[in-house]
């Protein structure tokens, strides 16, 4: 059996995280290993450009267009590529559809894998120990923390993201939104409805 001796270098650094990252950054800058402009660009991407609106557009399109929905489910990666919505942490995506009998819920018990290009960075609770440990064992109790109650007629299917496949829930379209245009539907799709911890709802003000 091989050994892997990854040492705990972090202990030599200041324990306060703010001081710790400053100490690290000064080493990296001195060695010329980081380019501040690249760091700014990364942050700009995930703070301002990539977010749940991307996922919402796909869901709204799937609700409005049956043919697109079939393509999205059967040929996901190609469809996302055509829409320019693939990328880091969304290289391989599977879309799971909620129905009258199945409610899907996404988790990553081993770390916090999440479909970044479609939903942006994960919310704090998604990364919490409580969510990671409880979602697979007692999904209905977890859902009640989100004020989501499911009828007994629905089975819960929890997807644990252990590989590089990323999961997106296609929520059921609310009956009261039937007939709306694809554009109008986008604002009904909440982030949580695409993780499975919530439902779509009318935009505020309606």
């Amino acid at each position, binding site marked *: 059996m091989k050994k892997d001796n990854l040492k*705990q270098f972090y202990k030599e650094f200041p324990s306060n995280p703010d001081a710790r990252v400053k100490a690290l950054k000064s080493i990296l800058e001195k060695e010329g290993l980081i380019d501040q402009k690249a760091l700014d660009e990364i942050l700009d991407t*995930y703070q301002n450009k990539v977010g749940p609106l991307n996922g919402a557009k796909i869901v709204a399109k799937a609700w409005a267009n049956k043919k697109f929905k079939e393509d999205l489910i059967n040929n996901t990666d190609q469809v996302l590529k055509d829409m320019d919505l693939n990328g880091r942490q969304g290289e391989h995506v599977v879309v799971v559809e909620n129905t009258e009998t199945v409610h899907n819920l996404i988790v990553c018990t081993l770390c916090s894998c999440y479909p970044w290009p479609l939903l942006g960075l994960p919310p704090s609770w998604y990364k919490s120990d409580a969510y990671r440990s409880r979602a697979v064992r007692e999904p209905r109790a977890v859902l009640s923390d989100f004020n989501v109650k499911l009828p007994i007629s629905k089975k*819960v299917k929890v997807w644990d993201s252990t590989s590089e496949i990323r999961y997106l829930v296609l929520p059921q379209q609310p009956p009261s939104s039937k007939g709306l245009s694809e554009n109008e539907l986008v604002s009904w799709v909440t982030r949580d409805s695409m993780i499975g911890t919530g439902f779509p709802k009318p935009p505020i003000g309606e």
Partner: protein
Amino acid sequence: MSKAHDMGGRLDSRRIDITSSDVKFKADWEKEVFAITLALGFSSLWNLDRSRYARESLEPKDYLQFGYFEKWLAGLINLLGENGIIKDGTESEDNFKKSSFRVLEAKNVKKLLHMGGPTKRDSTTEKNFNLGETVSVRANNSNTKVEKGHTRLPDYVKGRTGKVIAYHGSHVFPDANAHFLGESPEALYSIEFKSQDLWGKCEHVEDTVVVDLWESYLEKFK
């Protein structure tokens, strides 16, 4: 044997705190950690599996106490340490090969983030299980080549029985890749388990859990 990060099914009585759900970064240092970690991820000195391994190998008490980005930061420091960029005073010589380090430039950020790091490989590897087939998960979820090594086989499904519901082609095998033993792609499947079979007592007899598992994690059902 399961490490601190392998949390699925662990008893935890805490409610999910949904109040701070829209805060991406709680402080500026978290932004720094996030951006530096992503940038150095393109340095070519390690891979995503290695960085996961670095995080889950932190001292267990730190893993459990650290916030998400504190884990990223400590893991990153360890990766830089093993590459000689950060020194702990025990090295006799400078082992950092600067020439092999790729510095991420701003002009490449968009392209590289868009490309990501696909793990599906064209190679056809052994595939012993079919859609709909009942399979067993290996009873031991330790890495088979490296002592206390990386694995993506969660403790809560080891030795359990489930059904193949999807086949995803051949994917890079984390247990090997995390330790620079090559990509060793293997067939990847989604296996659906009845909650009842995993936990004994469950909330609803129809509920299931789906886990993505590689060929060598699985065995024929007997």
